[in-house]
């Protein structure tokens, strides 16, 4: 235990203890990810299938005009790369949500929740851990995409990092919020149908919004108000060293809102843990 001379907060924990807790949760999440190799492979295969097959097929069908942040005509593969990066994070966020439901059913979640550190901080650590895992996946995707001639400016690999962290936090917080409302693991299929697919398809991940507007003004507005659209655009601009301020504001606000919602839902006096003891317990 740290020395008592170390500065402590109101609850009696030092900064070092908070950092130790964060490290421990990130380390455990990374270990679980490493142990689940198939999860890593499927996380990579999914966007690569979109890139190698879907994008190749649609290249001839869907023309992309010059739109910011691009300064010239681009291949369709280049256009959808940021959307696929965000898709990795979307799936990872929902996967984390799934693992929280699983942990809750198996009882592992209790280990986390009976820690004396503040619960909001424990959830935040869990969120950071999930985001860190998603970053590994995104950069592995970018590495493979580079061989497919999707090569943003070298500095883009660095400038995109803050955008990826923010979008990862937003999608992870959304997953956490959703997990608080799922009673059983079996209900998770609904998340695929009602969250992941609508969020992904009603966004600018696969087609620019002006194209959507031409086809359906209503869908255009749905896409415009979809936070995932802004995660995609934030990543797209950051990959070229630019900032989309509107997307930055939307993603920041949504991250805060989802996180507050998740903390509220995991509060002992309300949300999921109010409903009853784990299966079989009385």
């Amino acid at each position: 235990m740290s020395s008592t001379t170390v500065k402590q907060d109101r609850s009696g924990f030092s900064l070092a203890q908070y950092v130790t807790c964060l490290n421990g949760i990130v380390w455990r999440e990374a270990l679980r990810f490493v142990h689940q190799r198939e999860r890593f492979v499927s996380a990579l295969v999914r966007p690569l299938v979109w890139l190698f097959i879907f994008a190749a097929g649609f290249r001839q069908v869907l023309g992309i005009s010059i739109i910011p942040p691009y300064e010239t005509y681009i291949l369709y593969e280049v256009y959808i790369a940021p959307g696929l990066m965000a898709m990795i994070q979307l799936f990872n966020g929902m996967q984390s949500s799934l693992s929280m439901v699983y942990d809750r059913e198996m009882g592992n979640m209790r280990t986390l929740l009976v820690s004396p550190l503040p619960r909001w901080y424990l959830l935040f650590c869990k969120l950071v851990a999930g985001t860190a895992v998603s970053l590994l996946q995104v950069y592995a995707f970018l590495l493979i995409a580079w061989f497919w001639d999707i090569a943003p400016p070298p500095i883009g690999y660095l400038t995109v990092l803050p955008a990826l962290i923010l979008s990862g936090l937003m999608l992870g917080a959304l997953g956490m919020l959703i997990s608080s409302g799922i009673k059983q693991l079996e209900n998770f299929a609904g998340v695929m149908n009602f969250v992941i697919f609508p969020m992904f398809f009603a966004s600018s991940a696969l087609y620019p919004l002006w194209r959507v507007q031409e086809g359906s003004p209503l869908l255009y507005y749905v896409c415009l108000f979809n936070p995932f659209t802004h995660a995609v655009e934030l990543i797209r601009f950051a990959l070229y060293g630019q900032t989309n301020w509107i997307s930055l504001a939307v993603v920041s606000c949504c991250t805060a809102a989802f996180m507050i919602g998740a903390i509220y839902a995991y509060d002992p006096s309300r949300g999921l843990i109010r409903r009853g003891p784990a299966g079989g317990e009385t």
Partner: protein
Amino acid sequence: MTATGAPTFDPAPPDTSPRNDPAEIPALSIGGVSHSYGTRRALADVSFAVAPASFTALLGLNGAGKSTLFALVTRLFGIQAGRISIFGHDISLVPGEALRLLGVVFQSRTLDLDLSVTQNLLYHAALHGIAKREARMRSDEVLARIGLADRAGSKVRDLSGGQMRRLEIARALLHRPRLLLLDEATVGLDIKARADILGHVRQLVTEQGIGVLWATHLFDEIMPGDDLVILHQGQVLAHGEVARIIADTGGHDVNSAFMRLTGVAAETGSPAP
């Protein structure tokens, strides 16, 4: 060091600073606690205390409300009515201070099966803000004590049921709590494993002065010198020394006392002769 010379954890938890005489402050104090799931009442005005360095058995049938009570004490559920404090720290007002003094073994297994024995312990230590070097030292210490030092690198899923339970107890003690809650910790274990675990926990009381609340529905896990709380349908029917409760009810053992109070028999964990 203990009376037997065995190494012990230093009882050096954070500042617990009892406001009065430490001996007067119960390890666990539960006052007027009620809890409902919708319209179904799980606990009704439950009150009792667990003294430091004592073994208190919480006896009740399945469905009596034991796990609900544990969930309230560990702050998994919010308290709807009443007050719970651990060494004087109100669990609702200062949860961090209260939870750091508490070790808990839940009825359902909460170990991560895909991680190794040591990794599970280190994860728990991190959740209590214990630095890695210190955590490794404590981990080696507890594993040696529970006889699992040679399994430190094994995946938890490769352990037997009894070993997993011992590991859960070791994990609950890693941050050096002063109060230990065990919710039906011997369920599903064979007689020898049950006896080992019960013996180990009783040793913690005598050697380390830890207060223990042992929830069970098996009356043969209760000894004459224990404190006993009988919980039935969410209500405390009796609380006190085993011998006194037996005498008060006019029974001749825990089972008959339980029967007289509730109208039903508790179970024995031993096979029928």
